[in-house]
């Protein structure tokens, strides 16, 4: 282990390596990829929201391959049971012919788990996954089974379909570090996608970073410093999302019913640190905080009736809050 400067340089290098590898198969979606990596290196899980066919699964798959980590995918359906995810005890016969119960781990036991269309499973199954996400272990027949680290859940949900879906309650959404919106690609990106995928012969992704290195990157991100006045910026933003708070701007008071939880503040700082290291800095800046506010908080604020009726975009509220705080910090 070298000096801090060397460690940060290595972080930057590896980060770029991973991104470049993923870019072999993914066109555009830079913000989503940055968000996924920030969430992952920040030690959290990400929820990706977007219409089908935008390359969500592909991106996650490519990321897992480039990281040389085990990858599992669960396609959530209404009849999916918790045991289908976490695994179950099965009767097995040993060499002596004796039978005994042995735990057969489910797909949750992987380093990177893609929970595709998580809102299609019943709340019971969702809860089983969310327990694993939060605790990092599963409990079967009174026995805890640790999930191998690092463990990242990248869940996707389709915003269009309502029939036969079970949207995640706000309390469970709070457990995702980031909620990323996968936008429709631009014309140029679309052109590149079509050209690249219809040419024949797909690019192969090589693992560029190993498990140990991932651990090191996560640990380094946690060590990155956050000066008190920068942490204060994050706290001010969290406070501003609470309509009853005196510093809340009018838009919060008008449209928000419940503001972000303290987990939102944690998410902001943890992911901002990744952005700082990615830029080769040793401490986070206000701009890092502003950059992660939307993915970190958009699923943590609950709109009131007026907000729902007006179909107010949460990002709009967060943009205004950031503007208010940014101006306040300049004076």
């Amino acid at each position, binding site marked *: 282990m070298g*000096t*801090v*400067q060397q460690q*940060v340089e290595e972080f930057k290098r590896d980060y770029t390596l991973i991104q470049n590898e993923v870019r072999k198969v993914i066109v555009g979606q830079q913000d989503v990829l940055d968000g996924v990596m920030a969430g992952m290196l920040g030690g959290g899980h990400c929820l990706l929201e977007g219409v089908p066919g935008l390359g969500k699964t592909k991106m996650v798959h490519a990321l897992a391959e480039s990281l040389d980590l085990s990858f599992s995918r669960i396609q959530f359906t*209404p009849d999916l049971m918790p045991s289908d995810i976490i695994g179950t005890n099965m009767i097995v016969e040993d060499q002596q012919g004796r039978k005994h119960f042995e735990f057969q781990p489910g797909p949750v036991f992987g380093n990177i788990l893609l929970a595709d269309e998580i809102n299609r499973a*019943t709340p019971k199954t969702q809860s089983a996954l969310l327990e694993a996400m939060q605790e990092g272990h599963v409990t079967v027949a009174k026995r805890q089974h640790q999930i191998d680290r690092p463990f990242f859940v990248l869940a996707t949900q389709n915003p269009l379909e*309502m*029939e*036969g*879906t*079970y*949207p995640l309650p706000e309390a469970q959404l709070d457990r995702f570090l980031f909620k990323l919106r996968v936008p429709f690609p631009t014309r140029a990106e679309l052109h590149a996608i079509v050209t690249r995928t219809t040419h024949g012969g797909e690019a192969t992704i090589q693992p560029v970073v190993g498990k140990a290195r991932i651990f090191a990157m996560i640990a380094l991100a946690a*060590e*990155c*410093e956050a*000066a*008190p*006045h*920068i942490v204060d910026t994050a706290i001010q933003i969290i406070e501003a999302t609470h309509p*009853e708070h005196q510093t809340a701007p009018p838009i919060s008071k008008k449209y928000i*019913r419940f503001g972000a939880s303290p987990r939102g503040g944690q998410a902001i700082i943890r992911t901002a640190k990744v952005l*700082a290291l990615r*830029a080769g*800095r*040793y*401490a*986070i*800046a*206000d*701009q*890092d905080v502003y950059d992660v506010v939307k993915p970190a908080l958009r699923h943590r604020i609950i*709109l*009131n*009736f*007026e907000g*729902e*009726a*007006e179909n107010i975009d949460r990002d709009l509220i967060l943009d205004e809050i950031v503007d208010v705080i940014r101006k306040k*910090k*300049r*004076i």
Partner: protein
Amino acid sequence: MTPIQTVRPIYRVIRRVRLRMVAMAVANRVVLMLALGLITSTATVAGIRSGLVSANGWQAIPWILGAASVFGVIWGLSIRISDLIAAKWIDDANLFADRLGNAISFATVTAPTPFMVAAIHDAINRLPTANPAVAAPWKRPRHLWTLALAAGAFASLAALRPPLEHREGNGFFTATLSPPPKELKAKLLPGEEQELTQTIEALRAQLEDQTNQHDLSETQKLLAELKELLEEIRAGKTNPEDAMLRLEDLERRFDKWTNEEGQKLDEIKEKLRLAAEKMKEDTKALEQLKNALDQGDLKAAAEALKKMADPKLTQREKERQKKELERLANALKDEKTRQMEQLKSEIDRLQKKEEQNRLSSREQDRLAKKKKELAQLQKEKEQNAKTNAEKQLERLTKTLDQAASEQQRNQGDEQNGEEQSAIDRAAEEMRRLSDAEQQKQTMRRMQRKMGAAKDLAKRSSMKQRGGTQGENGASQNGGQQLGQDAQQEQDSDRLGQTKRRRLEEFMARSGSKPFKGNGGGHNGEKKPAMMDGIPGNGAKTAMGSDPGDSQGQQAGGQGEGSQAGSEPDHRDPLGETTGLDSKRQDTFVAGQKTKGPSRSETIFGAAGEGFAGTSYKTVYHDYESVIEEDMLREQIPAGHRRYIERYFDIIGPQRDQ
């Protein structure tokens, strides 16, 4: 090297930036304050120009500007810019991503982590590229345009016309800002001079008339001053402002005098009424006198007194009249007069005794004492300045007394020429009092005319200042109207009879009862302005001019009703005078185009206009249980349940409901 020592170069850059920020803040605030100071000064100059502020206001302007500048400097210096804010400005301007701010923050930590140390060194390494000029660039003060506009407004207002009064010895500011006075005559435009002169001439004529009729010493003084003012205006020795000030002074004195006279006259009328209550109605003339005094009709009282001198009256009637006149005279006497009369009779009695040498030493002392008291009372009476009305009352009382005593003396004498003369004099005094009553009303109208003349002088003064002549015609017409009105006032008594006759004819034509009055003069319009006693809208009736004369044909302003003539009869068939507040002005209310209410506003608006008597919270909780039961009973798809629950969740009562 400790972290604090390491970050010293950062603090140096921060200080430089902070200095620039403070300098800019001072400049901004000084400019703002100066702009405000200039706006205030402009208002002051405007006040001086309009006469609301005295010319000494010029002296305040330098003080205002000086104070504004000093306040701006102090205000600017008072701002506190923290190191973090200054560092933030440098970081943002030089794209340092909060490196300097983080460094000075980490430098205060006693046990810095390797990352903190690395962050500090990173900031130090970036420092040479930090440019304070980029961080806090010099910008033009924000309110410079406001200052320029305010300065422009001030300069144009100050240069528009120099101060009216040039006061020497008021300091160098007045000396420099106030040019020497110009030729006063040049300020008066021909039309305005004519207008002002005409108005004051009308006033003077009216006042002279009143003075000749009633021996009014105070009005004589006023008249003399008015004449002097008129001559000065004609000779061009005064300007409208001086004329205005002098008219103001005259008006004030006139008001005081008129109010005092009016009050005394009311008191006298009340005194006469009370005195009449004690009278007996033994003869027809006495009955008339009592009734007239009771109603406050002094003219009728004078007529009744004249009838008392009728030679056809019997001796008995004369005796009764004598008694009642004595009673009336006694009732009118004030306390001092009574005391003086008692003293005089006592002195007469004692003096008669003295002539007969029957006066004891005690009585001699008493006589001396009474004489002294009488002298004292006479002195007091002379010292107390009496109003014209009081003098008239005194004369009336005296003549009534004389009439009574002479009647007694001439009882049984057929040659009662002297008695008739005293009664006649009493009647004349009563008539004068009646005239004074009319004069009171005339004086009140003159008061208004004097105010109008003053306003005219003021308008002339303001118009000259502004250099505008657009109002010339209007004000001239107004002045002519004032002059004509004043002239009409003089003629009102004469013309009242004519108007009354016309009015009676009109009433007869319209089928109404004839008007009982003695001269409420209303000039005619080309068509009647009133039907059945309802005043017409838009018809103007001027005071006491002949029907069909030039004034009478003018179109009147809206809502201007008729005014009573010289007769104090309140039963004006043309109705009460329309108040000025009856004027109406149409107001156009412009609407504003908007997108209209949002969905939530529509929903909330409908709810807000309802008549719910139960709180939403209560209703919601009642229905919440019903919803749950229904959801259990009904076969709702599992995926829909969540949305139903969510729907009812979001329409649930807010915390503040």
